[in-house]
């Protein structure tokens, strides 16, 4: 049989045009607040289904943790006989903006505090209560509830003054190769964001949606859980939840996503 090359060329040319048009329109997608300059939220790399699920608070499965957190907020806990509300009142007022500016340098503790370590400081020092275990139902509920109070606010962390040292430490971590597979964060999230690794589309690895509801986890998870997962993926020994290493990395990764909106609880694949 004789191949009709002219026809094939025509089809190929038409396809090239289609691909071209598609690529331009994809580039031109207006992600609204989910993109600031070249910084894109993980939201922009998700499927339409996950995006729809995230923005509809009736459908967003992470909202269960927000509700649980709201209950805990008002519960008396510890020997001092106080609840969070005893000191902080209405969380919709007092906790607004916290997720956007944390982690922050704490002069008293002489270290960086993120939302989780701050909650535990309050529990122990101000309420004389037991600290929450990392990744426990209580910790995830409280952090999801607190971070949700900043929904839509642009991430704006401080990296000057005493925080500068932590920022530099986090940055060094981000660019350091590790594990048997010898990769740094930047190899996946800076060099190859938008690329497909096995079945996953790599995002820029932004921190603005945490705790995030991951369909794979079937629950919300903390940013440090994600860090541990990314470390183990390259066969590298992870650091502990709440470790200085991850606190520094959290500050640096938050800074990379400056201006992106807080999305807690984000929905991710």
């Amino acid at each position: 049989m004789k191949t009709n090359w002219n026809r094939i060329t025509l089809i190929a040319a038409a396809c090239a045009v289609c691909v071209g048009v598609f690529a331009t329109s994809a580039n031109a997608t207006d992600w609204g607040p989910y993109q600031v300059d070249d910084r894109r939220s993980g939201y922009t790399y998700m499927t339409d289904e996950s995006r729809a699920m995230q923005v509809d608070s009736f459908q967003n499965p992470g909202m269960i943790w927000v509700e649980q957190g709201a209950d805990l907020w008002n519960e008396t806990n510890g020997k001092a006989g106080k609840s969070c509300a005893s000191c902080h009142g209405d969380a919709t007022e007092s906790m607004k903006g916290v997720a956007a500016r944390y982690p922050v340098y704490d002069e008293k503790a002489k270290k960086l505090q993120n939302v989780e370590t701050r909650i535990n400081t309050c529990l122990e020092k101000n309420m004389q209560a037991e600290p929450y275990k990392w990744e426990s139902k209580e910790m995830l509920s409280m952090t999801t509830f607190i971070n949700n109070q900043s929904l839509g606010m642009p991430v704006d962390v401080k990296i000057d003054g005493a925080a500068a040292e932590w920022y530099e430490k986090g940055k060094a971590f981000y660019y350091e190769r590790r594990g048997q597979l010898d990769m740094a964060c930047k190899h996946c999230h800076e060099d190859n964001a938008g690329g497909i690794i096995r079945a996953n589309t790599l995002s820029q690895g932004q921190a603005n949606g945490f705790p995030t509801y991951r369909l794979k986890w079937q629950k919300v998870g903390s940013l440090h859980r994600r860090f541990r997962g990314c470390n183990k993926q390259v066969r590298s020994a992870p650091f502990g939840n709440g470790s200085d290493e991850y606190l520094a990395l959290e500050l640096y990764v938050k800074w990379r996503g400056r201006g992106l909106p807080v999305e807690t609880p984000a929905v991710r694949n």
Partner: protein
Amino acid sequence: MPSLKTLIPAIAASVLLAGTATAGDLVSYKVVDYGIPSSLTGKAGDAAAGEKTFVNRKLGNCLACHQVTKLSAHPFHGEIGPSLDGVAERYEEPQLRLQVVNAKEINPDTIMPAFYRTEGLHRVLKNFKGKPVLTAEQVEDVVAYLKTLK
């Protein structure tokens, strides 16, 4: 996408590394002109075994990043690295061997893991410490498989 051919600055590095013996239990090898001329095991690899190692997610997991049309029965080919269709026509065996053994000698900034290296790694998980991703034999099998991609 950097390729073996476009990475001129790395030539100097590969010349410096020529003759460097690999420490530990690894077989030592010589890097010459961007390649490792001799087999790590002294024999030719087995292409059929190499295909299995290539696909296996716990071993080569090469499809995490590369596409191979002949392997389209296996789902989820990544797009981080180039398609390996016809790679045997683009490169000689020594170059393919070095790319698998330690791609960083060609492109120091590559994301591609070195599959036969234990030195200079940072915070390796306990079970993988001191071990290369692939054994010398598995590397040779994978190289033999790559040579079938014409």
